[in-house]
Protein backbone atom coordinates (compact mmCIF):
# COMPACT_ATOMS: atom_id res chain seq x y z
CA UNK A 1 0.00 0.00 0.00
CA UNK A 2 1.44 3.34 -0.98
CA UNK A 3 1.75 6.38 1.26
CA UNK A 4 -1.13 8.82 0.69
CA UNK A 5 -0.08 12.02 -1.05
CA UNK A 6 -1.29 14.15 1.84
CA UNK A 7 0.02 13.22 5.26
CA UNK A 8 -0.98 14.14 8.75
CA UNK A 9 1.96 14.80 11.00
CA UNK A 10 1.64 13.62 14.58
CA UNK A 11 3.20 16.63 16.30
CA UNK A 12 2.14 20.28 16.01
CA UNK A 13 4.29 22.75 14.11
CA UNK A 14 6.72 24.25 16.70
CA UNK A 15 6.08 27.98 17.20
CA UNK A 16 9.31 28.57 19.14
CA UNK A 17 12.86 27.24 19.24
CA UNK A 18 13.18 23.58 20.22
CA UNK A 19 15.86 21.89 22.33
CA UNK A 20 18.31 19.96 20.14
CA UNK A 21 21.66 18.34 20.77
CA UNK A 22 24.36 17.01 18.46
CA UNK A 23 23.24 13.73 16.89
CA UNK A 24 19.50 14.34 17.32
CA UNK A 25 17.57 13.05 14.31
CA UNK A 26 14.71 14.60 12.39
CA UNK A 27 11.56 12.45 12.65
CA UNK A 28 11.59 10.20 9.58
CA UNK A 29 8.90 10.74 7.00
CA UNK A 30 8.12 9.51 3.51
CA UNK A 31 6.27 10.63 0.40
CA UNK A 32 5.14 8.68 -2.58
CA UNK A 33 4.99 7.01 -4.89
CA UNK A 34 5.37 10.37 -6.68
CA UNK A 35 2.68 10.80 -9.33
CA UNK A 36 2.50 13.09 -12.34
CA UNK A 37 -0.36 14.78 -10.45
CA UNK A 38 2.01 15.58 -7.57
CA UNK A 39 4.45 17.19 -10.02
CA UNK A 40 1.69 19.22 -11.70
CA UNK A 41 0.32 20.25 -8.29
CA UNK A 42 3.74 21.65 -7.43
CA UNK A 43 3.97 23.39 -10.81
CA UNK A 44 0.66 25.13 -10.07
CA UNK A 45 1.66 26.03 -6.53
CA UNK A 46 5.21 27.17 -7.26
CA UNK A 47 5.02 28.46 -10.82
CA UNK A 48 7.53 26.24 -12.63
CA UNK A 49 5.88 25.32 -15.93
CA UNK A 50 9.00 24.05 -17.66
CA UNK A 51 7.59 21.42 -20.06
CA UNK A 52 10.25 18.90 -18.93
CA UNK A 53 8.08 18.47 -15.82
CA UNK A 54 4.65 17.92 -17.41
CA UNK A 55 4.99 17.32 -21.18
CA UNK A 56 5.98 13.69 -21.85
CA UNK A 57 6.69 14.32 -25.56
CA UNK A 58 8.91 17.33 -24.84
CA UNK A 59 10.82 15.37 -22.17
CA UNK A 60 11.39 12.42 -24.53
CA UNK A 61 12.53 14.70 -27.36
CA UNK A 62 14.99 16.26 -24.91
CA UNK A 63 16.44 12.80 -24.32
CA UNK A 64 14.82 11.89 -21.00
CA UNK A 65 12.77 8.71 -20.41
CA UNK A 66 9.80 10.92 -19.50
CA UNK A 67 8.77 13.78 -17.24
CA UNK A 68 10.46 14.21 -13.88
CA UNK A 69 9.84 16.39 -10.82
CA UNK A 70 11.26 19.88 -10.57
CA UNK A 71 13.93 19.76 -7.86
CA UNK A 72 12.12 22.47 -5.91
CA UNK A 73 9.27 20.00 -5.26
CA UNK A 74 11.38 17.61 -3.22
CA UNK A 75 13.44 20.52 -1.84
CA UNK A 76 10.22 22.15 -0.64
CA UNK A 77 9.06 18.89 0.92
CA UNK A 78 12.36 18.64 2.76
CA UNK A 79 12.11 22.28 3.91
CA UNK A 80 8.59 21.60 5.14
CA UNK A 81 9.78 18.61 7.20
CA UNK A 82 12.71 20.63 8.54
CA UNK A 83 10.22 23.32 9.59
CA UNK A 84 8.05 20.70 11.30
CA UNK A 85 11.10 19.65 13.30
CA UNK A 86 12.85 22.93 14.25
CA UNK A 87 9.97 25.41 13.78
CA UNK A 88 9.48 27.50 10.62
CA UNK A 89 10.47 30.80 12.28
CA UNK A 90 13.81 29.39 13.43
CA UNK A 91 15.34 28.38 10.11
CA UNK A 92 18.18 30.78 9.24
CA UNK A 93 19.54 29.06 6.11
CA UNK A 94 18.59 26.11 3.92
CA UNK A 95 20.75 24.88 1.07
CA UNK A 96 20.09 21.90 -1.22
CA UNK A 97 22.08 20.09 -3.89
CA UNK A 98 20.15 18.02 -6.42
CA UNK A 99 22.06 14.78 -6.98
CA UNK A 100 19.55 12.82 -9.04
CA UNK A 101 16.19 13.33 -10.71
CA UNK A 102 12.91 12.20 -9.13
CA UNK A 103 10.69 10.16 -11.47
CA UNK A 104 7.02 9.25 -11.27
CA UNK A 105 6.74 6.14 -9.09
CA UNK A 106 9.67 7.08 -6.84
CA UNK A 107 9.14 6.79 -3.11
CA UNK A 108 11.00 9.42 -1.11
CA UNK A 109 12.29 9.36 2.44
CA UNK A 110 13.39 12.43 4.39
CA UNK A 111 16.11 12.32 7.03
CA UNK A 112 18.33 14.71 8.92
CA UNK A 113 20.47 15.08 12.01
CA UNK A 114 22.24 17.76 14.03
CA UNK A 115 25.93 17.99 13.09
CA UNK A 116 27.04 20.71 15.48
CA UNK A 117 25.82 23.50 17.72
CA UNK A 118 27.32 26.98 17.92
CA UNK A 119 26.50 30.36 19.39
CA UNK A 120 26.20 32.92 16.59
CA UNK A 121 24.72 36.45 16.65
CA UNK A 122 23.53 35.85 20.21
CA UNK A 123 21.61 32.71 19.25
CA UNK A 124 22.21 29.04 19.85
CA UNK A 125 22.22 27.52 16.38
CA UNK A 126 22.25 23.98 15.08
CA UNK A 127 23.96 23.00 11.85
CA UNK A 128 21.87 20.24 10.33
CA UNK A 129 22.63 17.72 7.56
CA UNK A 130 19.66 16.52 5.56
CA UNK A 131 18.94 14.06 2.77
CA UNK A 132 16.10 13.00 0.55
CA UNK A 133 16.57 9.36 -0.41
CA UNK A 134 14.80 7.24 -2.97
CA UNK A 135 13.50 4.15 -1.17
CA UNK A 136 15.90 2.13 -3.35
CA UNK A 137 18.69 3.89 -1.41
CA UNK A 138 20.29 6.56 -3.56
CA UNK A 139 20.10 10.23 -2.53
CA UNK A 140 18.17 12.70 -4.68
CA UNK A 141 19.05 15.67 -2.45
CA UNK A 142 21.81 16.37 0.03
CA UNK A 143 21.21 19.50 2.06
CA UNK A 144 22.34 21.58 5.00
CA UNK A 145 20.43 23.96 7.23
CA UNK A 146 21.06 26.31 10.11
CA UNK A 147 18.37 26.74 12.74
CA UNK A 148 18.06 28.74 15.94
CA UNK A 149 17.43 26.41 18.87
CA UNK A 150 16.52 26.77 22.52
CA UNK A 151 19.50 27.24 24.88
CA UNK A 152 20.66 23.88 26.22
CA UNK A 153 19.26 22.98 29.65
CA UNK A 154 21.71 23.25 32.54
CA UNK A 155 23.01 19.77 33.33
CA UNK A 156 23.79 20.06 37.03
Amino acid at each position, binding site marked *: MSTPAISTFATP*LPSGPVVLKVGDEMPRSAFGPVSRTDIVRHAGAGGDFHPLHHDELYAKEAGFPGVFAMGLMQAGMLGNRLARWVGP*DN*IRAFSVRFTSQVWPGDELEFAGHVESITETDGEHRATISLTVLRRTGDPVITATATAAIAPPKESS
Partner: protein
Amino acid sequence: MIHPSIVGMELGEVRFPIERSKLAELARAYGDDDPAWHDAAAAATAGFTTLPLPPTATILGDHWRPGGILALAEQIGADPARLLHGEASWELLAPIEPGEQLTARQRVESVKTREGKRGGTMTIVTLLTEFTNDNGTPVVRRRDALIESGVPS
Protein backbone atom coordinates in the same frame (compact mmCIF):
# COMPACT_ATOMS: atom_id res chain seq x y z
CA MET B 1 25.16 28.23 -25.37
CA ILE B 2 25.57 30.39 -22.29
CA HIS B 3 28.20 33.08 -22.74
CA PRO B 4 30.43 34.06 -19.76
CA SER B 5 29.78 37.73 -20.55
CA ILE B 6 26.32 37.46 -18.92
CA VAL B 7 27.89 37.68 -15.44
CA GLY B 8 26.27 40.65 -13.72
CA MET B 9 23.31 40.71 -16.11
CA GLU B 10 20.14 41.99 -14.42
CA LEU B 11 17.25 39.59 -14.96
CA GLY B 12 14.47 41.87 -13.88
CA GLU B 13 12.41 42.73 -10.87
CA VAL B 14 9.03 41.46 -9.75
CA ARG B 15 6.80 42.54 -6.88
CA PHE B 16 4.46 39.89 -5.52
CA PRO B 17 2.33 39.10 -2.48
CA ILE B 18 2.82 36.35 0.09
CA GLU B 19 -0.78 35.22 0.37
CA ARG B 20 -2.77 32.62 2.22
CA SER B 21 -4.21 30.73 -0.77
CA LYS B 22 -0.76 30.22 -2.31
CA LEU B 23 0.58 29.08 1.08
CA ALA B 24 -2.25 26.51 1.21
CA GLU B 25 -1.30 25.30 -2.28
CA LEU B 26 2.35 25.00 -1.28
CA ALA B 27 1.50 23.01 1.87
CA ARG B 28 -0.60 20.61 -0.21
CA ALA B 29 2.17 20.30 -2.81
CA TYR B 30 4.54 19.40 0.05
CA GLY B 31 2.15 16.69 1.22
CA ASP B 32 1.26 18.40 4.50
CA ASP B 33 -2.41 18.86 5.41
CA ASP B 34 -1.81 20.79 8.66
CA PRO B 35 -4.19 23.82 8.56
CA ALA B 36 -1.65 25.85 10.59
CA TRP B 37 0.04 26.69 7.25
CA HIS B 38 -2.98 28.58 5.93
CA ASP B 39 -5.66 29.04 8.61
CA ALA B 40 -5.14 31.89 11.09
CA ALA B 41 -7.11 30.17 13.88
CA ALA B 42 -5.19 26.90 13.49
CA ALA B 43 -1.90 28.83 13.39
CA ALA B 44 -2.90 30.71 16.57
CA THR B 45 -3.73 27.41 18.30
CA ALA B 46 -0.22 26.21 17.42
CA GLY B 47 1.17 29.41 19.00
CA PHE B 48 1.84 31.59 15.93
CA THR B 49 0.82 35.24 15.73
CA THR B 50 0.91 35.20 11.89
CA LEU B 51 0.82 32.34 9.39
CA PRO B 52 4.12 30.43 9.41
CA LEU B 53 6.08 30.17 6.16
CA PRO B 54 8.09 27.22 4.84
CA PRO B 55 11.75 28.15 4.12
CA THR B 56 11.09 27.89 0.37
CA ALA B 57 8.06 30.26 0.36
CA THR B 58 9.77 32.87 -1.83
CA ILE B 59 9.57 30.49 -4.83
CA LEU B 60 6.07 31.98 -5.12
CA GLY B 61 7.73 34.94 -6.83
CA ASP B 62 8.58 32.66 -9.78
CA HIS B 63 4.90 32.88 -10.81
CA TRP B 64 5.26 36.58 -11.45
CA ARG B 65 8.09 36.45 -13.97
CA PRO B 66 6.62 37.03 -17.41
CA GLY B 67 7.25 33.94 -19.56
CA GLY B 68 8.47 31.92 -16.58
CA ILE B 69 11.44 29.59 -16.77
CA LEU B 70 11.48 29.46 -20.60
CA ALA B 71 11.84 33.25 -20.80
CA LEU B 72 14.64 33.06 -18.24
CA ALA B 73 16.42 30.40 -20.33
CA GLU B 74 16.19 32.68 -23.33
CA GLN B 75 17.50 35.67 -21.34
CA ILE B 76 20.62 33.78 -20.27
CA GLY B 77 21.07 32.12 -23.67
CA ALA B 78 20.48 28.56 -22.43
CA ASP B 79 18.82 25.67 -24.26
CA PRO B 80 15.80 24.96 -22.00
CA ALA B 81 15.76 21.26 -22.95
CA ARG B 82 19.29 20.87 -21.49
CA LEU B 83 18.80 23.09 -18.43
CA LEU B 84 18.68 21.38 -15.01
CA HIS B 85 18.63 22.67 -11.45
CA GLY B 86 21.89 21.86 -9.65
CA GLU B 87 21.58 23.69 -6.33
CA ALA B 88 19.30 26.07 -4.49
CA SER B 89 19.84 27.95 -1.25
CA TRP B 90 17.97 30.41 0.92
CA GLU B 91 19.37 32.74 3.55
CA LEU B 92 16.43 33.78 5.69
CA LEU B 93 17.44 37.22 6.91
CA ALA B 94 14.30 38.68 8.46
CA PRO B 95 10.72 37.59 9.14
CA ILE B 96 8.12 37.85 6.35
CA GLU B 97 4.55 38.71 7.27
CA PRO B 98 1.93 36.92 5.20
CA GLY B 99 -0.07 39.59 3.41
CA GLU B 100 2.94 41.75 2.66
CA GLN B 101 4.46 42.39 -0.77
CA LEU B 102 8.01 41.43 -1.60
CA THR B 103 10.24 42.71 -4.37
CA ALA B 104 12.61 40.18 -5.97
CA ARG B 105 15.62 41.40 -7.94
CA GLN B 106 17.50 38.74 -9.83
CA ARG B 107 20.88 38.81 -11.53
CA VAL B 108 23.56 36.48 -12.87
CA GLU B 109 26.19 36.05 -10.17
CA SER B 110 28.62 33.68 -11.90
CA VAL B 111 29.16 31.43 -14.92
CA LYS B 112 31.47 28.42 -14.78
CA THR B 113 32.18 25.55 -17.13
CA ARG B 114 33.11 21.95 -16.39
CA GLU B 115 33.67 18.83 -18.46
CA GLY B 116 30.48 16.73 -18.28
CA LYS B 117 30.47 13.03 -17.39
CA ARG B 118 28.60 12.17 -20.57
CA GLY B 119 30.77 14.27 -22.84
CA GLY B 120 30.58 17.91 -23.81
CA THR B 121 31.06 20.92 -21.58
CA MET B 122 28.52 21.75 -18.88
CA THR B 123 27.87 25.37 -18.01
CA ILE B 124 26.84 26.29 -14.47
CA VAL B 125 25.07 29.61 -14.02
CA THR B 126 24.45 30.94 -10.54
CA LEU B 127 21.54 33.33 -10.16
CA LEU B 128 21.21 35.57 -7.11
CA THR B 129 17.76 36.77 -6.12
CA GLU B 130 17.40 39.35 -3.37
CA PHE B 131 13.99 39.76 -1.78
CA THR B 132 13.13 42.94 0.10
CA ASN B 133 9.94 44.03 1.84
CA ASP B 134 8.22 47.38 1.31
CA ASN B 135 10.41 48.97 3.99
CA GLY B 136 13.43 48.07 1.88
CA THR B 137 14.57 45.48 4.43
CA PRO B 138 16.31 42.46 2.84
CA VAL B 139 14.33 39.39 3.96
CA VAL B 140 15.68 36.53 1.83
CA ARG B 141 18.74 35.95 -0.32
CA ARG B 142 18.26 33.03 -2.71
CA ARG B 143 20.80 31.42 -5.00
CA ASP B 144 20.11 28.93 -7.79
CA ALA B 145 22.74 27.02 -9.72
CA LEU B 146 21.40 26.06 -13.14
CA ILE B 147 23.30 23.52 -15.21
CA GLU B 148 23.21 23.44 -18.98
CA SER B 149 24.42 19.97 -19.91
CA GLY B 150 26.91 19.63 -22.74
CA VAL B 151 26.19 18.25 -26.18
CA PRO B 152 28.19 14.98 -26.44
CA SER B 153 30.55 15.26 -29.40
